């Protein structure tokens, strides 16, 4: 934060009416010189309340998933306020709609930081929206808590990654398949960054572990025609399908899969983007006994989860399922609260410094913040879809897995 | 007398098996004022469509030394062949002056095109004068009366400086005085250009035609001066011998359904 550009700002009024390009050369920081604006987060913490930003898609194609996360965030804020707030201050949630559009996410992130002066922001779902807002949070040195499992390979000082990184979801899922003797895989995914990165990891893992990847197909996001891909899968003779499809495509894929005569018994599908909410919209008719990989299920045992599910259903309706991203969103607010209280301040630098080692008895089990990577230790859980639409755990990693977003601890991943 | 002649040999146009023009031969000399007459469906408008490149045709159509068949519409127009339509077709959103200025400008270079029109080009002023539209020049063409639109169309052909004018029922719907004035105008124009008129109005034809071709069922039935044609028994049979067909004078402009030559119809059909 240098005063260099601030002193020059006075120039602006004078030059603004003059030809812009000429003026450009007269002032402004050059790239490379570390003068990131001098306008870090200017959160206002003087009053009896502090604002927190909730940045989710409330409209557009992603609203389906993100509204549930938004609900979980609001629930956590409400609970925290009821229990006295954070450092004696009540939280005032400010919701902004990312509208399923990445540039809009960037715009809204800026609005939250600059206009609403929030102390921290919670939200984003897709990798693309996270990538879009990342420079904004870095520019203004403000914090984002990201609640969704993602493709790893990222470590921004201003983002806390509360969802699983690849070694807490993809790698354990592969370990599980290997253990079951399902070594010939077919990879089906939506065409975006998470499936492509996940599949890269899967292929490297397979190579090192004597497994075989027989085919790899991507469908454009929102694609609903899967007959050809299903034919390819069927003809491949694979033991199992590793499914990284997203959203609507899953519905079409599983309907096709079933009518092609493929079942969980013949060729199980392990999905990493199907949680309880999605099971409901696809239908157990098509999904029964198929596998999923997450860190949390509605059925995960423990008092913390019982409380969470009860509170959520009391707030949003008895039949409403809870899912992994919702749980991660919910605990992200509590984790932030714990960091602030440990730091004794809302100051971003102090909060970050206090983060390491924060432990929470979460609905998904014990989670611990890893200060170095700003990820959390999470337990990997493989689940099976039951006839009631709920997912029950069939295997877990036994203990929380240390986050390793760049897979540095895995020798087979060195070439990635 | 100047201009070039139109030579048509064995012209054929078929639509899905229906032959609209069936081996027509025509020779129109420079400076002629030729009338094409014939009952409905005789192929008059289709013949003009073929000459101006609107429909595909077999045979040969030569204007001077140039073969016209197979050329795109705008290339034929640039050779100096202009036409009007049964339904007067002008640019309704533009003013009379703008209509004429556009008609005058097919050969303009890019720099002229990109500049605003300053003043009134001389040919445009002359055409305004000739067609009597000078006072209406800043009015939108869409609000002109029917007859005025047809005059505007003729004016557009004048500024276009065409050598051959093909007019499709230019006096339909005009009052007697207007017909006379139009006829005089055509006569004057034909001093320097070749004019072909499709017409149903026999009085009008008798007054102004220099030569006449009668079309029937896609073929030339008779050709010659007004008197010769009128004396031809085959022509009388075609016009009078069919009970269903009323006396042509009595049914000038209510030509029913087929022959939708107007571009508006073409556009609508294509867009449908």
């Amino acid at each position, binding site marked *: 934060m240098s005063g260099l550009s601030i002193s020059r700002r006075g120039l602006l009024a004078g030059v603004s009416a003059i030809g812009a390009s000429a003026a450009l050369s007269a002032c402004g920081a050059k790239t490379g010189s570390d003068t990131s604006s001098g306008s870090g987060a200017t959160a206002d913490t003087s009053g009896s309340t502090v604002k927190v930003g909730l940045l989710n898609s409330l409209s557009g194609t992603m609203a389906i998933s993100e509204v549930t996360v938004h609900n979980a965030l609001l629930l956590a804020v409400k609970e925290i306020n009821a229990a006295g707030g954070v450092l004696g201050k009540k939280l005032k949630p400010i919701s902004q709609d990312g509208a399923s559009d990445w540039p809009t996410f960037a715009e809204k992130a800026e609005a939250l930081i600059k206009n609403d002066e929030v102390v921290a922001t919670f939200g984003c779902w897709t990798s693309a929206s996270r990538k879009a807002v990342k420079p904004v949070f870095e520019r203004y040195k403000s914090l984002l808590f990201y609640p969704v499992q993602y493709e790893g390979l990222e470590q921004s000082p201003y983002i806390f990654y509360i969802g699983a990184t690849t070694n807490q979801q993809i790698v354990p899922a592969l370990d599980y398949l290997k253990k079951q003797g399902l070594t010939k895989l077919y990879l089906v995914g939506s065409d975006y960054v998470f499936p492509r990165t996940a599949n890269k990891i899967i292929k490297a893992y397979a190579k090192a572990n004597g497994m075989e990847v027989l085919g790899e*197909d991507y469908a454009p996001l929102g694609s*609903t025609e899967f*007959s050809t891909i299903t*034919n390819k899968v069927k003809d491949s003779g694979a033991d199992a399908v590793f499914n990284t499809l997203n959203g609507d495509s899953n519905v079409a894929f599983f309907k096709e899969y079933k*009518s092609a005569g493929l079942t969980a018994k013949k060729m199980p599908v392990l999905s990493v983007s199907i949680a309880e909410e999605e099971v409901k919209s*696809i239908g157990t008719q098509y999904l029964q006994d198929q596998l999923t990989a997450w860190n949390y299920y509605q059925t995960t045992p423990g008092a913390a989860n019982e409380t969470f599910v009860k509170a959520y259903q009391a707030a949003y309706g008895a039949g409403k399922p809870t899912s992994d991203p919702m749980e991660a969103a919910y605990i992200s607010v509590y984790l932030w609260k714990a960091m602030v209280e440990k730091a004794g301040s809302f100051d971003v630098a102090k909060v970050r410094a206090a983060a390491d080692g924060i432990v929470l008895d979460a609905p998904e089990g014990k989670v611990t913040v890893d200060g170095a990577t700003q990820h959390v230790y999470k337990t990997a859980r493989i689940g099976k879809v039951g006839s009631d639409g709920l997912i029950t755990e069939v295997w877990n990693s036994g203990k929380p897995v240390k986050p390793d977003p760049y897979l540095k601890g895995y020798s087979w991943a060195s070439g990635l | 007398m100047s201009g070039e002649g139109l030579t048509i040999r064995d012209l054929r146009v078929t639509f899905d098996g229906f032959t609209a023009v069936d081996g027509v031969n025509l020779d129109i000399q420079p400076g002629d004022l030729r009338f094409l007459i014939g009952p409905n469906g005789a192929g008059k408008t289709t013949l003009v469509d073929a000459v101006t490149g609107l429909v595909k045709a077999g045979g040969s159509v030569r204007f001077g030394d140039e073969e016209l068949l197979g050329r795109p519409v705008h290339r034929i127009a640039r050779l100096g062949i202009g036409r009007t339509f049964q339904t007067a077709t002008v640019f309704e959103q533009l003013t009379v002056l703008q209509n004429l200025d556009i008609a005058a400008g097919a050969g303009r270079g890019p720099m002229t095109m990109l500049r605003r029109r300053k003043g009134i080009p001389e040919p445009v002023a002359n055409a305004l004068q000739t067609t009597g539209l000078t006072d209406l020049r800043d009015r939108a063409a869409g609000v002109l009366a029917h007859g005025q639109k047809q005059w505007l169309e003729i004016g557009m052909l004048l500024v276009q400086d065409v050598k051959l004018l093909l007019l499709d029922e230019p006096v339909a719907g005009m009052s007697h005085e207007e017909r006379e004035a139009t006829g005089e105008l055509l006569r004057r124009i034909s001093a320097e250009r070749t004019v072909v008129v499709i017409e149903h109005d026999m009085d009008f034809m008798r007054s102004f035609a220099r030569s006449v071709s009668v079309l029937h069922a896609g073929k030339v039935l008779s050709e010659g001066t007004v008197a010769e044609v009128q004396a031809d028994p085959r022509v009388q049979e075609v016009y009078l011998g069919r009970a269903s067909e009323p006396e042509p004078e009595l049914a000038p402009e209510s030509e029913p359904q087929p022959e*939708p030559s107007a571009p508006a119809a073409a556009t609508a059909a294509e867009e449908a």
Partner: protein
Amino acid sequence: MTVILNQSFTGISIGAVLLLIALGLTLTFGQMGVINMAHGEFIMAGAYTTYVLQKSISSAGVSLLVALPVAFLVAGAMGALLEWLLIRRLYTRPLDTLLVTWGVSLMLQQLARDVFGAPNVQTHAPDLLTGNISLGGGITLANNRLFILGLALLCVLGLTLILRLTPLGRRVRAVVQNRDLAEVSGIATERVDRTTFFIGSGLAGVAGVALTLVGPIGPTMGTNYIVDAFLVVVVGGIGQLKGSVITAFVLGVLQSVLEYSTTVSVAKVAVLVAIVAFLQWRPQGLYTLRTRSLA
């Protein structure tokens, strides 16, 4: 060989879906020239009709069969309403119709979201339609696809009969070929327009019922199909049912063959390029009504 046969069937079944979603458009777009972007939402209405009916009729098979006519009526009524409220005012402005109905489509999507919720809903397919028929040698035909194929062909047959044989069909064709003449001949063109739109939109509803067997049911499901459906009619040629039928199956097979040998993205892009190239060759589509002055 097995691959080829299986892929051919896949292509035909993709074609059947395309045909079903485009069939209504051959009337509203092909015959009437209306670019109705809300057509996709009529498909959605058909799908939600199935969902609602299934809540009251527990048997999946019965509810599906009941849904077919009900969805036809529901979507048809929506279409007739749309025609009466908006489209009839816009017949001379086809491009503006596109944008206006896009607005309608946005509103209908939001309506579905408010009524049924933003997430997809599920319907239960009858067990009979979730299996497949094995012809031996690894060749299998999925029952739901066979059902859709049959339904599509049935709709084509029905539509052809209506257009060819009934007085209504004659009036529809008369209005398409020459509105003014039809009007002076004593045909109530406005009523014919509305009826045509009713049938076209109703067919979208039927397509929606069929799509519950293969795809997601949600507020935005219509947008997945709308451009493809229009392309089928554009390539097939205006006013000609057979053009759309052939096009749907050709595009379906093309898509499935390309998808099998390359990737879905490449196949999609390649099909679109092929369509643009085809329209270079035949700008009026595969079949077209030839009229004079219109080569």
